[in-house]
């Protein structure tokens, strides 16, 4: 890895220092091993992160293709499209939202126009779930990303969509999403991770930091659908203050190996946080999910539901921890992991954890793993539904409670179609 240098134009001193720190961390922190509790059951990365390099400006042909395929929804408040970490398109917010003070900036724009905002929030939340080394790599390289600032009382109707594409063999991308939602604001965003080709092996180390200030409403959706050669890290944090409502929903379909770390810190009372994940694992894919629900304040709710369907010889690891700090009374914290094994060779691991230091709490976790109930299947078959369709119905039904949480009908349809296509190829 090269010594850190300024990657964007006129980077301030503090950013240079953060980049140096990142380089330092990446160099000095040990490569994780399966002996680390945070990496238990994970099969280790056979690929050296150092093999992956940032890519040069993509061809106009690739850009065109990329733009054509970046059409998740007809309606959005604004969109950014990055290809190999190069910004190829950014639509701007409506004049109305601009007038209300909403900011939707690339990192470069933030450096140039809102350095104080950037300094206050950018790269301030690392992960605590094992990939600190890779957060370092992200910090030293990050240049693609969106900073969304929603001022007090502003509600944004349509989603803001960030597309992050890869297209280069051994390409490294470090997408970054930063959301700052002020009091009484409301915002919904979608991050889409995708590969332009089926064949390039890429590495993505994405970071997302959400700051939900008092009473803010934030709903972030992530669709990870990289090609099955790509290695993906997704290092997400949320800080939820008093009376906030935060919802995270992840759809995990792609990558050879996808490591997903998602930490929510509840620092104020009255917060209500939901964490959902839907994963379809096939072939030799490995989805490694680590979650952390920290309750530092009383009277808040967090609810997690991670559902995995496993085909072929795929693997999933769910390792979650609910931590209720001393004094965080009247906490309601839940954690549920359900795994549906669709092939006897698939391998589901579940490590649901609790650390509770307050007694007046409602905390529970549940983990189940099983196959499709043959009696359920018989019931569907006995109505004349074919084996293939019956299996599809059951698997889609398994995910329905998560799909149901999506707030847009067209997104729901898009996701259903995506899943149906996947299952119809799988279930025959």
């Amino acid at each position, binding site marked *: 890895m090269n010594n850190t240098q300024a990657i964007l134009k006129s980077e301030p001193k503090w950013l240079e220092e953060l980049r140096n720190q990142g380089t330092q961390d990446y160099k000095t922190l040990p490569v994780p091993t399966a*002996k680390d509790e945070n990496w238990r059951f994970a099969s280790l990365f056979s690929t050296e992160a150092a093999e992956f390099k940032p890519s040069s400006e993509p061809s106009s042909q690739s850009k065109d293709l990329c733009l054509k395929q970046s059409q998740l929804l007809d309606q959005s408040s604004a969109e950014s499209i990055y290809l190999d970490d190069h910004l190829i398109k950014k639509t701007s917010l409506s004049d109305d939202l601009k007038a209300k003070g909403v900011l939707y900036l690339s990192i470069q724009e933030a450096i140039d126009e809102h350095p104080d905002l950037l300094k206050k929030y950018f790269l301030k939340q690392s992960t605590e779930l094992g990939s600190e080394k890779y957060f370092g790599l992200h910090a030293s390289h990050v240049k693609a990303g969106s900073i969304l600032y929603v001022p007090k009382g502003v509600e944004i109707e349509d989603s803001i969509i960030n597309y992050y594409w890869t297209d280069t063999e051994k390409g490294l991308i470090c997408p970054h999403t930063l959301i700052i939602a002020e009091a009484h604001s409301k915002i919904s965003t979608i991050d889409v991770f995708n590969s332009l080709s089926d064949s390039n092996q890429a590495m993505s180390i994405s970071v997302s930091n959400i700051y939900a200030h008092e009473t803010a409403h934030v709903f972030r959706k992530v669709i990870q659908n990289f090609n099955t050669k790509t290695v993906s890290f997704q290092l997400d944090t949320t800080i939820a203050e008093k009376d906030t409502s935060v919802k995270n929903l992840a759809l995990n379909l792609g990558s050879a190996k996808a490591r997903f770390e998602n930490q929510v810190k509840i620092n104020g009372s009255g917060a209500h946080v939901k964490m959902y994940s839907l994963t379809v694992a096939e072939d030799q894919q490995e989805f490694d999910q680590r979650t952390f629900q920290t309750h530092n304040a009383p009277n808040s709710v967090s609810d997690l539901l991670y559902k995995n369907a496993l085909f072929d010889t795929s693997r999933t690891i769910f390792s979650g921890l609910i931590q209720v700090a*001393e004094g965080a009374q009247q906490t309601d914290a839940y954690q549920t992991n359900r795994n549906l094994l669709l092939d006897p*060779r*698939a391998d*589901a691991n*579940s490590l649901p954890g609790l*650390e509770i*230091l307050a007694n007046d709490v409602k905390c529970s976790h549940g983990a189940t793993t*099983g196959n499709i109930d043959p009696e359920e299947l018989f019931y569907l078959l006995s109505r004349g539904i074919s084996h293939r369709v019956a299996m599809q119905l059951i698997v889609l039904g398994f995910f329905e409670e998560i799909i149901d949480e999506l707030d847009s009908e067209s997104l729901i349809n898009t996701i259903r179609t995506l899943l149906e296509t996947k299952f119809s190829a799988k279930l025959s």
Partner: protein
Amino acid sequence: MSDSTLNEQEESILVDNEKGNFSFPEDYQFDAGTGLSKETIAYISSVKNEAEWVKEFRLKALELFEKKPMPTHWASSDLENIVFDNIRYYLSKGQKPSRTWEEVPDDVKETFERLGIPEQERKFLAGVEAQFDSEAAYSRMKEDLEKEGVIFVGSSEGLEKYPEIFKPYFGKVIPSADNKFSALNSAVFSGGSFIYVPKGVKLKQPLQAYFRINAENFGQFERTLIIADEGAELTYMEGCTAPKFETATLHSAVVELVALKNAKIQYITVQNWSNNVFNLVTKRAHAEENAEVKWIDCNIGSRLTMKYPGVVLKGRKARGEVLSIALANDGQHQDTGAKMVHLADETTSNIISKSISIGEGRSTYRGQVHMPKHLKSCKNNTECDALLINSNSRTDTYPAITTRGDANTVQHEASVSKVSAEQIFYMMQRGLSEGEAMSLAVNGFVNDLLKAFPMEYSVELKRLIDMEMEGSVG
């Protein structure tokens, strides 16, 4: 059962914090001194007049112990406070275990009398072994069992007299290298029970062992191996106490169970260590085809207990169960759990763990359920419930579940609760004190598990829980 017999039983029973808090002046013929080295092992081995292979087994284990790091990357850092150089690894009065209580030295006899052991033996036990520090002072089994070929002896006697029976399994269920403390036990083990129940023999009454630490700075390392031959059945119970010393004491046992085809073993532990004992125990069973192993475990007391009884389900339709109650009071950490390894089709396992944390007590559940191969129709059910009494009490749950295969189902559920103010109010309105109400609620919380213990134990456990609850409210 009438009230009078109930009361009688309540009085007679063994384990009691206060009852256990006494010790006799030391008067040992054999003392391996302080600290651990090859010489310590040579000394233990020569006192026991052991076969060469046993000595070699010990020395190899010592090497493993020295090599292995403390498991503090996942376990409590309190382990760092064990000073192995300050521990006395072998203390005995040199006697062979007596067959009658009359022959037992007076101070030892009085110890066990105060703990109620001889009385229990008369009442409901098929055999008793009473260990005082490193060696058994008393060991006896009903004669008819001897005639049926049941063997119930200490570890030294077992290895010396019946190597053909015990050697094939000794150190095989739990290899010395399993963990740092199994290595330590393998190096310095002394005492414990070696039991063999022949084919088809079903013991109607339990066998019991009682482990007593008397000397300060002492480490107790009993070793137990129980083999139930095809179709055999037995229940084994162990109780443990130690006086309250100024300095920490170490108890590190290894317990291996082997249930051959169609055999059933039920292993019951009631531990009530004083709160400066490090209790680091490795327990595991092999269950062959259609065999059943049940660990029923109650952990009260100690400073730090680390214990995760396991069953390796090796044969088709084997069943494993762990039922455990843990109670952690101020300054205590009960780090307990269970391990179920499914290695054959149609194996089932069940884990029910209930913990109570009082004051600053901390209880931790660690579990492992493993269905690593392409098995069919295996089932696991795990339930962990934690009750937190005070606002600064703590509980943790760390299960690890791996599932593969066809028509397997694994289900894990955990919950955390407290005794609600409304419940307490309701009971107080009926005239109970707050403490009584709390005790009642706690007993209710563990009630269904208490039923798994023999009557004589469950009555006592209820009383122990009441004692622990004293002063927890108000």
